[in-house]
Structures are given as C-alpha cells and as structure tokens.
C-alpha cells in the first residue's frame, strides 16, 4: 500500500552561503516583503529556487505541482527523491526522513520506493525497450529472468506488448514515454515522480497519456507527484494542485478550489483561460444548502463528479434545479440553472438584479424556490 509523502518547509538555494540565504528568507517571511528578499539574493548571485514549501500527499493521491518555468517546481520534485539535497527542511516518505539518510540508504530508497518519469523520456539509447523497462530492477539486483518478466508486464500495462525487442529510437514520442512510464512502474515503487512527463508530446497524444495515467491509477493507486506548467493538465489529473510562483507555493487545493477560489491575482490570472466547463463538476457548482426534497421527483439527477458540461445538458432537460445525489442516492446539493450560467461567466454566488420590464417570470420562480 502506498505511503504518505510529507514535505516540510523545504528550501533550496543555489549559490554561495545558502544557509545564510535561507535565514534571510525566513526573516523576510516575518517581515512580509518576501519577494524583495529573493530579488536581493539574486543580485548577490544566489538563487532561491524553492522557498518554504510544505505539503502532504496522501497515499493514492495525484498531487500536481503547477507553475511556469523557473518557478522552482522541478527543483522541488528533485528534492523529493533526494536528487537535489534540500538546503533546509524535511521530506518524509513512509515514515522515513529522506533528508537524514546516507547516500547509500537514499539510493536504496530511490531504487525501491520512488521512481521517476522524465520530460524528455530519458530512455537509454544503448538499451532495448525491454532493458530500459527493466533498468530499475537491474539496479535492485533482480535476476535477469524475473526482471524481464516484470518489465514485460509493465510494458504490457502501458500498452507496449510486442515492442520489447525494439530500440528506443524506433518508437514515436508517445511510445517512448510509455516506455518511460513502464520503467517507472516496473519497480513497484510506491511514489511516482513525474516531471512534465507529457509536455513534450503532441496535444492528442498527451491526452491519451493522461487518460492512460488516470486509468492505471484506478488500479495501481500509486502516490503520484506530477509536475506540469499546463493548468488544463493539472486540473485534469490532479486530485489536488499546488500552484508555484517564484519558488513559493501560493495555493494548494483541488482543481475547483483553484478555479473558484484563487488565492491571489496571480492564480486568478492563470485560471482565466481555463475551460471551466471541463474542470467544474456538480460538486463545485451545487448549492449545499438544500431543503431535502429536491430529488424526490423522478427527474434526472446528477452525481457530485458530473462534469459541468453534462450538468448543463441535464439542467436543460429538467424544469427545475438539478438535484445532486451521491452514490447512495442521498441528496447532497442542488444546481439551479442560474448558477450554472453564473459559473460559466466566472460570476459565482451572484444574486440576479431586478429587471424593469420582466418578460418572463421563470427566473423569479427559480429564485423564490431557492
């Protein structure tokens, strides 16, 4: 079973006297003029890549770290498996503090418990597809027959059965990344670190891969930390999303949280272009303040994870607000049509104004019913 990953006050500073820089950054936080401290340090030639990052990833969760290039997300990821040693802070995984391990123990953890998928696939060109997939097992010292069997399984899982004897340069980008994924899965590591793993792929293939990842996750239930600069991808994959800016995590929340309640203008500006209808679900849109009888009719209802677009369709067919029920058909909320339109227009929780010459009473009726 997957284990819980905790990052606590992680700092990573490149350059001279990193410890002093961390101290200054900590004091800067107290002074509440953080941005300036980072700028000051940069002027000294010291780069603060990650500043005070803390988060917890639950077992079986896909945790997406989202940010523009240079925001420190890749560095953050590399601190999670010790490829980059944190300047300050702790990483705990499955009860072990990775920051306190020796090199040898850390390598042990990396070979057995944490695996990684890279942006540019990082397949070994001098190894066949099978040998690539088996690489992690080879490092662990698994005997050849077994590691080839497990590698073949992982490849099959990623849809590459029959390509075992090919060479990486004979595969398309998408297929190469499937090999990368198979390599990461073959070791049965609990924690999967994915560094912009789908960014280098064509949009259609990227979508395929995302679907495949979600598919796999249903059965494998790995703990996954996924780095991306693409908010749509983040929203699609992430159970929770951390948005990073200039080395800091500015918001952590579910896709809807981020979309509906951006922590600041920066996040808001990010979410602006997001196709809300794809991200929002009934759970995010619904009013939880219910009377209790909304679902008593035979009308169509929605589930909490019914996507926004489908919700609209239901709403169009149902004469009243759509009732949202959970798996056991218990009412959890309602979605009035007005609310749907409001979300689409990025105006949630609005009370419609009064029209001077109402042509239709419908709206009022709905309001009064709500």
């Amino acid at each position: 079973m997957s284990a819980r990953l905790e990052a606590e006050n992680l700092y990573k500073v490149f350059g001279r006297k990193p410890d002093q820089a961390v101290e200054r950054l900590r004091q800067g936080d107290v002074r509440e003029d953080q941005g300036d401290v980072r700028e000051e340090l940069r002027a000294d030639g010291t780069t603060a890549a990650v500043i005070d990052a803390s988060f917890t990833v639950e077992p079986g969760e896909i945790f997406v770290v989202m940010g523009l290039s240079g925001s420190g997300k890749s560095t953050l990821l590399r601190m999670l498996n010790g490829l980059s040693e944190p300047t300050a802070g702790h990483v705990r995984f499955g009860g072990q503090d990775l920051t306190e391990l020796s090199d040898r123990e850390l390598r042990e953890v990396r070979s057995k418990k944490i695996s990684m998928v890279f942006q540019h696939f990082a397949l070994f060109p001098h190894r066949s597809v099978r040998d690539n997939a088996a690489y992690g097992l080879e490092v662990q010292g698994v005997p050849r027959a077994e590691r080839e069997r497990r590698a073949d399984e992982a490849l099959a899982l990623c849809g590459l059965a029959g390509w075992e004897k090919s060479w990486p340069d004979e595969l398309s980008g998408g297929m190469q990344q499937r090999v990368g994924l198979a390599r990461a899965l073959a070791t049965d590591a609990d924690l999967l670190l994915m560094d912009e793993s789908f960014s280098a792929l064509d949009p259609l293939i990227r979508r395929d891969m995302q679907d495949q990842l979600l598919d796999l996750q249903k059965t494998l239930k790995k703990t996954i930390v996924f780095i991306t600069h693409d908010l749509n991808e983040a929203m699609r994959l992430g159970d929770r999303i951390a948005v990073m800016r200039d080395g800091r995590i500015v918001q952590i929340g579910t896709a809807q949280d981020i979309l509906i309640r951006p922590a600041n203008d920066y996040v808001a500006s990010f979410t602006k272009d997001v196709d809300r209808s794809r991200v929002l679900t009934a759970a995010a849109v619904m009013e939880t303040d219910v009377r209790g009888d909304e679902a008593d009719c035979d009308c169509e209802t929605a589930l909490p994870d019914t996507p926004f677009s489908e919700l609209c369709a239901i709403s169009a067919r149902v004469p009243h607000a759509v009732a949202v029920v959970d798996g056991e058909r218990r009412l959890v909320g309602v979605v009035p049509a007005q609310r749907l339109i409001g979300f689409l227009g990025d105006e949630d929780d609005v009370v419609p104004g009064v029209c001077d010459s109402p042509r239709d009473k419908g709206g009022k009726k709905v309001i009064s019913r709500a």
Partner: protein
Amino acid sequence: MPRIPLGDWVNSSVDWLLDNVSWLFTFLKDIFTGAYDGINAVLQAPEPLLLAGIFAVIAFWLRGTFAGVLSFVGFAFIDSLGLWDNAMVTLALLLVATIIALVVSVPVGIWAARSDRVSAFVRPVLDFMQTLPAMIYLIPAILFFGTGSAPGIVATLIFALAPGVRMTELGIRQVDKELVEAAEAFGTTPRNTLLRVQLPLALPTVMAGVNQVIMLGLSMAAIAGMVGTGGLGGDVMESIGQLNVGLGAEAGVAIVILAIYLDRMTSALGTHVSPLGRRAAAKARAAKGLKIWSYRPQPQVAVIGIVILALVAGGMGMFGGGSDDAEAAGGGKNVGNGKKVSIGYIPWDEGVASTFLWKEILEQRGFEVEAKQFEAGPLYTALAQGNIDFQTDSWLPTTHEQYWKKYGKQLEDLGSWYDETSLELTVPAYMKDVNSLEDLKGKADLFGGKITGIEPSAGEMNLLKSKILKEYGLDQEYKVVDSSTPAMLAELKRAYSKQEPIVVTLWSPHWAYNDYKLKKLKDPKGAWGKGDGVHSLSRKGFSDDNPVVAKWLKDFSMSEKQLTSLEAEINKAGKGQQQEAVRTWLKANPGVVDKLAPVEGGSGATPAEAKQPLDVAWFPWEEDVAVTYLWKNVLERRGYKMNLKQMDVGPVYTGLASGGIDLNFDAWLPHAQSNYWNKHKDNLVDLGTWYEPTSLEIAVPSYVKDVKSLADLKGKSDLFDGKIIGIEPGTGQMQLVKNDVMPAYGLEDEYEVVDGSTPAMLAELKRALAKKEPVAVTLWSPHWAYSDYDLTKLKDPKKAFGEGNTIRTISSKNFPEQYPQLTKWIKNFKMSEDELGSLEAEIKDRGQGHEEEAVAAWLKEHPDMVGRMTP
C-alpha cells in the same frame, strides 16, 4: 625587467629529480621497455606476410573484404620496401605508447568529466604537453630514461595523452544530463552510472580520442627516431640526414600505410565496441544489403582465422629462428679472428662480383671484411696509401696502365684471376651494317654524334678518347658522353627496347652480353690493345700482414662461366643485395669457398667483456654511420653484441653522460661539439682520435669562378643574395662562423648566416647546383658532398675557423673499466681519408638498410682492417 631564471630552476629541478627519484624512472623505464620488448618480440617473430595476413583478417573482420585485401597489399608493400622490421618496431612502440596513454588518459578524462576543478587543472597541463616542442622533452627524457625505446615511448606518450583525456572528458560530459539523472533517480551507484550509462554512451567519442592518440603517437614516433628509438622514425631521420629523398619517401609511405590502417581499424573498432555504433552499423547494413566487398565475417570466424595464422606464424618462427641460430653459430672455420680486411672496388660488374665473393668468403673465414666502392683513380690512391688492403679489379696491363705506372711501386700484384677480357665499343645486334669501328665513320647522324661512355675516370674512357677515336678518325664526328656505368646501361636498355641506334662503351666479361643481343665492334687496327687480365692488387706489405689471404688471392681464378653466372646473380638481386646474391650463388656452386680459401687456422678468441652488449649511439652523418657499422661488424666477429641507436647530438652526449649509452664514434672535438663536451666532460671519457684532420669551411660550387677564399666573398653579397646557408643553429660550427669567421673577413654586414639544418643546407646546395646558381654553404670535411659535387672549399688565410677538429671516440665514464680490451682497441684505431671516404661511399651506394652489407663489402676490400682494429 629582472631576468627570471626559469632555465636555472628547470635545470636544478631536473638535477634534483635525477638525484632523488631515479628509482621511479628506472621503474617506469622497466615497464616501458618490458612492454615494448614483449610486443616487439611478438610482432617481429612471424613471417612478414603471415603477420600481414593477420592484419588483413582483422581488417576483414572489422571493415569487410575490400579493407582486408587492401590491408594485405599495404603491408606486403611495406615488406617489399624492406622496411618491415622497422615498421614493426614503430608499431610496437606505438602500441605500447597507446596502451599506456589510454591507461592514463581515460581515467584522467573521467575524473576531469566528474570534477570541474580537476578539469580546470588538467586542461592547461594538456595544452602544455601538446604544444611544447617535442625536442624539449626528448632530451630530458634521455636523461631520465636513457636511450632506446623508453624515451621514445615517453615522448610519444606525452604528445598523445592530450586527445585521450580531452575526448574522454568531452564524451562523458556530452552524455545527456537527463540520462544521468534518470540513472541516479533509479538509485544507480555513481560507479555503475559511469560504467553502464556514461561510458557506453561516451564510447564513440572516447574511441575517436583513441584514434587521435594513435595518429598523434604515430607522428611522434617518427620524431622519436632522433633519440635512437629506431623504426621508421630512424629511417626518416637517416634519410633526411643523407638527403636521400627516395628512402625518405619509402619510410614516409610506410608510416602513412601504418597510419591509415590503424586509423581505419580503430574507427571501425569504435563502432564495434560501442552499442550505439553497432546499432548504426546494423541499420546501415540492413539498408545496403549484403555485398561481397563489404561482407564481414562473424567475429568467431575472424578469431579462428587469426588464431590459425598466429599458430602457423608461431610454428614457423620457431623453426625459422632455430635455423638462423644454427647458421650464425656454424661459422666454424675462423681464420681471421675478426681481423679486418678492406677491399676496394670499382662499381663494375666483375669488380662487384669478385669483391663480394671475397667478402663472403673472408667473412666465412672469420675476417671482418669491408668493401669500399671507389672510382678507379681513388681506388689506386687508396691502395697505394695502404688505406685499403686489396682490390680485385685491376685491368692490366692496358686499361689501368696509367695507374700502375703511377702507383705500381707501392702495390703488390697478386696475379690475374681472369684472363679473357676485352674492351670494346658495342652496338645492338639490330644495327645491321655496323660491325667494326671503321663502320662508325660517317654514321654520326645515326647515333646522334654520341658515344655513350661510362665514368670519366675509367681507363677505358681515357683510351677511347685519346686513342681509339683518333685511330679511326672518329674524333671529329663523335662526342664521348661522360656518365656512369649504370647510366650507360640504362641508356642502352632504353635504346634497345625502342630499337634505336646506340653505341656504348662496354667490356667483356659483362652480363649485358647475356641479357641483350649485342655486337662488339671489331677493332681491326688493334687500337684497344691486347686483352687485359683482371688482377688482384694489394697494398705493399699486405701479404706480410695477411699471408693466408694473400695466398688465397694469388691462387684465385674464375672461369668465364662462373664469373658471368655470379654477375648475373648479383645483377638480378639488385643493388644492396650483392652479398645475398653471392650467398645464393655459393649455394649453387658448393665447394667454391673451400677451394678459394682452404682453411688452416683455429677460431678467434672472444674476450670476456664481450658478454655485455654495447650500446652505441650514432648520428645520421656519413662518417658516423660508416665507422659505427664498421665497428659493429668487426666487434661482432669477436663475439661482442652491439645495439645501435640513432640519435641527435644533444641526446647522445646526455645519454653518454648518464651511462645509458656506452660509445659514440663521432665526437668532433675540441671545437665543433665543445659546448656538449664541456657540459658533460666530467662524465665522459675521450678514447682518442681515429680520424684527422677535419676542417670546417664555407664552400661554394666550383662554377662560381672568382670566389676561392673567404676574402673573395667580400663585396659579392649580391651574387649570393646576401646569404650564407648555415646548418643547425647552436652547433659549434655555426657559432664559429657567426662570431669569428664573419667578423674576421668583414662579412658580417654583408651576409646573413641563415639558420637551418644540415639536410636543409644540403637540399639548398643541391637545388642551387641544379640551377647553376651561386650559393655559399657552411660545410665540413670529410663530407660526401665533396665527392658528389664539384665544390670549392673557400680558403681561410686568416685561420678564422681555427685548427681542425679531430674525430674522436667518446664513451661513458665507466666504459674503460667495463671494456678494457675494447678501450685499448679503440684507442689504437685510426682510419685514413680514403678508408673513410670509400666506406662512406660504399654505404651511400648501397642505400639505407644495407649498411652491414656495405661494411662487410668494404672490409673485404680492406682485409687488414679487422686485424688492425682488433689485433
């Protein structure tokens, strides 16, 4: 600006190193020479063509059929040039240097790739090693490692290390960072990251580095010839020293063949050992399909082929080696006790034949025989002066009448050994209506008015010009063209093949009568005189010194059949192979040796000191080549072993002083090499002069009419373009010219003494001579240039050049203790100008690689020489 005494620091640190860490250098030297000896032994053991076959199979395996065939052809070509042994020496040297270079450079490159600090440190060191002129560390290399293969390997190593380190570092640094990170992310240890990811992926670049190491090593191996490493480098050095462009080209081509082979093989190996290369090659093959020229066998097949050839080679090597030893040991009837006999000969066929016959016979009898080639005139002079012992090619009473008259009193006639001779003018048989000398009259147009003659000094030419032509009234119509016997024969051959009219000066017996259909022109007036007998002449007193040999010579006679068959054999074998031809002939005519030289004596004593091999260094200068090989021949008769090492002057002195070399025969002292001598004199011993006088001078071609003395140069700078062509800067002679001679004659403002090198000076001289341009060069006597070209030594009335040097033998400090007998012999050793000149000429004529034969030949002409040198 204060003078920074960098040089002093370097000197003192070199001294310190010598005093304190010599154990390290000895250790390294042992490694280098051990590895070299091993590899060289392996390469030298098999038959050349078998080894060429092995090389070809390797090429076949790595690159395909075409490359295999080409490799075999290339190596067979090297063998046919007679450069095989030297090529293998170079290859062995190169392999050792390459292996050591890789053992050092790959780890250093890896280290540099993993640490920026190491990289920053290593880079300037590499720049330093690569750009520092090789000469600068060649000399200290001798100080540290002595002479021989070790300094050559060190020099090659220093030069060739850099690309190995650089390419390894580059290759590893070029490996995609993400791949390295991927390896680390899966918990790979640093060691395995290196071995499983970085090195395999860097391999193509590393192999390109290996390739560069080999190529640079090869170019350096040629330069290392300067320090007595031998091999093709030695050939190159020697050919440059003697201005032998042909030989230089041969050695150069051999190096190029080696280079191309090694280059192609290592780059092919690169694709084979690296997984990426294998993939690319497999793809390319799949695309191209199977072709016979690019067909490559499976590795197993190749290995089996190589093993079979190697086994055959090993087997043959064993048997071959065995028989060689038997031959060497079976010399048996040693009458000569290594006594020196020198034979002079004129390069006429019967002279060559009889001389080399005697050389072989006398050598079999334990004499050390040298055969010197002369023009007729100098031959008699040399004989009269006692510089050579005997010669076998005296045409008496007619042809050599003038010489006999002049020198007869100082000579002994050992009798005629061949009587049926005649001199004649000869035309091809297709000249139907020319049968007698009288028929030549009025046919000058037909022959272009030319009679193709031989050496102008030959008696026959004299006779022809002064008597024959007049007698038949041809002197107005025909011009007798002076040339040489080979040139005459070449001209005859050319005309004969085109069926053109030609008339040549010829004599009987001559092999040309066997090979071509020729007609001897009748001499109805008897102008040529009666047929001569071919006599053996010796210097006065030879028969007292060498009664046995004298008796043999007196009893010597040959039939026409014997002589012509021997001549034909020699002619077939070609120049430089005379003695082999004689051996072949002797095999076909068993019993001749015993008949001509019946044995009575016992065997020569081998002094106890002879057990230690001698290291003798020689400069590629004519007199040194001559004297060194002479001693080699003589001493080997007495059981000494000599390792000859060709080196430059500086290295020789350093080597002698450090005890790495035992002897050098060519010390020009007290002036020319005084700077070297003074530096090392505490560690050197002067074993005395063997040749004097020598002189240093400025020489001009004799067609520069009005310049006879140094004083005449004044005011003629326009004529010589204001230049005096010098030799190596820093030599005693150059310093003398610049500091003393020029000011003494007030020439320093008019002329510039151009620094260069001896070969460059000789090349310039040759060029100017060809164009008949005025030129002034710094030269010295003895030098072959005086015998080859018409030069005027400029007189030095003010004695600015000082007294002449004498040529001395110098040795390491311990030498007299180690070799008391030899020291005594060397101290008593003397050579006359004619002896030296004739030996030099002999060696020069034989060409490089045949020095030993030349010496052996010369010794035959100087039968007393062995006795004189090692009584």
